[in-house]
């Protein structure tokens, strides 16, 4: 069991490093990065300065080595040694130390990428967790309900409604909730993100309701149908007939024998969907103007802020890899057959 977990984690680390390499190569394959970072109103002086700050004049292998080094032990900006030494004497405030795991430095924001992400991540994580709990709870609940009442009117209504909800685009649902629920009918206060430190758990939850709901509705609709399909499949298995033949009550047959096998595959799906949300729900955050990672990505993209984009892609990839490992380890607890492999 422990050996299995360690093996999974080691594979995860290798995967993470390969991902960083691919991201790095992709971003540097598109010509001179200094030019895009320098921006629209670039002057030759500014270009030289950008090149020195990021060390874009070095061979790409060296840059990659320094990036990995920064991830492991941290690094200093500007990267160019002579430039940094000169700056240290003239203007020491402009020398930035980026502690490990250093994801880079954004000249545009005058902050390390880590600081940027740390600033925007709480909103995204809050929305993701809230939405996740909501969609898992109601998605599975309605999914099981639909499966149990298969073919009856309740099932038909649930399947029909989820189809409509699933088809609605996020920007529509978000704008609708904002326009009507918050502004016209004033059922909830106008949504703004309030951290737990500022508004307590209550204020935090109220602030998250609409964006989380927007996000959750789509996933919930998908999970109702997936759960329904998994439960129906499980209920048609031979071991369900065995359970009935033993004389167990229908409740035990459904909840103990049926759901156990039906909900296990949901575990891996839910893990990955949650990880994907951690990269930021771009549309939802934009509609509600919440300062999350999705919005950070949009802003960084508009400003050609390459370091921030690299950092975000790596964080998003890491989230998926880590959730994958977690799900794999959890699976071994849930499915006894996994342990032998």
């Amino acid at each position, binding site marked *: 069991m422990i050996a299995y977990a360690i093996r999974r984690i080691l594979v995860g680390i290798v995967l993470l490093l390969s991902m960083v390499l691919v991201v790095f190569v992709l971003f540097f394959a598109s010509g001179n990065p200094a030019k895009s970072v320098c921006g629209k109103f670039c002057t030759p002086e500014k270009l030289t300065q950008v090149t020195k700050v990021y060390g874009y004049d070095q061979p790409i292998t060296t840059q990659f080595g320094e990036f990995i080094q920064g991830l492991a032990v941290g690094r200093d900006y500007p990267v160019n040694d002579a430039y940094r030494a000169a700056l240290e004497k003239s203007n020491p405030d402009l020398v930035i130390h980026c502690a490990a795991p250093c994801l880079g430095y954004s000249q545009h924001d005058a902050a390390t990428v880590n600081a940027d992400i740390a600033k925007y991540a709480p909103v995204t994580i809050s929305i993701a967790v809230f939405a996740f709990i909501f969609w898992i709870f109601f998605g599975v609940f309605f999914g099981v309900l639909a499966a149990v009442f298969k073919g009856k009117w309740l099932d038909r209504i649930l399947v029909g409604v989820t189809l409509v909800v699933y088809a609605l685009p996020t920007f529509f649902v978000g704008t609708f909730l904002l326009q009507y629920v918050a502004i016209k009918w004033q059922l909830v206060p106008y949504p703004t993100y309030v951290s737990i430190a500022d508004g307590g758990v209550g204020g935090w939850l109220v602030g998250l309701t609409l964006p989380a709901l927007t996000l959750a509705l789509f996933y919930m609709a998908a999970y109702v149908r997936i759960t329904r399909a998994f439960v129906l499949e499980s209920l048609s298995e031979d071991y369900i007939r065995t359970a*009935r033949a*033993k*004389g167990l009550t229908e409740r035990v047959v459904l909840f103990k024998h049926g759901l156990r096998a039906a909900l296990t595959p949901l575990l891996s799906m839910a893990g990955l969907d949650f990880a994907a949300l951690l990269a930021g729900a771009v549309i939802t955050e934009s509609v509600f103007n919440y300062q999350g990672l999705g919005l950070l990505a949009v802003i960084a993209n508009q400003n050609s802020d390459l370091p921030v984009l690299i950092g975000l892609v790596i964080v998003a990839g890491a989230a998926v890899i880590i959730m994958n490992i977690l799900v794999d380890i959890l699976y071994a607890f849930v499915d006894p057959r996994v342990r*032998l492999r």
Partner: protein
Amino acid sequence: MSRPFLSVANLAVHFPTSDGLVRATDGLSYTLERGKTLGIVGESGSGKSVSSSAILGLHRGTNAQVSGEIWFDGTDLLSLSDEDMRRRRGKDVAMIFQDPLSALHPYYRVGDQISEAYLAHNQVSKRVARARTIEMLDRVGIPQPDRRVDDYPHQFSGGMRQRVMIAMALINDPILLIADEPTTALDVTVQAQILDLLQELQREFNTALIMITHDLGVIAEIADDVLVMYAGRAVEYGATRDLMTQPAMPYTWGLIQSIPDVTRSVDLPLRPIPGNPPSLLNQPPGCAFFARCEYAQFVPGDRCATTLPDLLPLSDGHLKRCHLDHDLASYAVVETGAI
């Protein structure tokens, strides 16, 4: 007057589908006494499993339409409420299924799955149920039962898994045991062990046994009576000896001829029955076997195609559903259909 221990009368199981009514079983009747074994033989889809599942009430809660009577130990099982049926299921009547790997839940320990059956019908503590489970595992010949009780199904071999299923079925000392092709998924050597075990346990508990199979070899070995099913109906029914030595229905004869036999010369090809069983949807009016029957030519007119023969007794008492008047041996059939 006393009713037989188990008496199935005019049992029909129909499934309404969007394509029409599937008559999986129709007009099925048979009886069985305690300590005796009835073999039900037939091809896949002949209604063997469907009709036997009806005894346990496994069609309840589905869209199946079950009619007829199933008198078991003095009660008509079909007239019981769902809850009363559940109380008898797994206690008085138990069933063993074909593929023990899929019939056991992959996520639960075998011990828990077996004791669950005991706990469903007995007000005892989990410890008592566990002790009883270990005792049953030992009884069905699983070595080191006190250790294996905590293993999962995938950690057992096929034969051992079927023993687990048998232990599960017998833990409440059922008086009727239905074995649905219990040896089909097993190695030949293991098959014999499982059959021996079933017979031994049957003698010990004086259980009535219904053995569903498509293997006449198994029937010959353990059954007192045989019921041959074809397209949802009984086509021949009688004592095993009579039926095996004097088959009166061409289908039974076809089944007997298609048994591989190690002593048979390799030059003599097996004689499979040509064709496939008919669809259970929109069955033709005549004999269901007519299209595949080599003897239909000896029946005058088109009676085989138009009239369903009745299940009628022969001189030795066994029943056949066939228009032929004489013994099969008296007809000269051209050897066709051999590969």
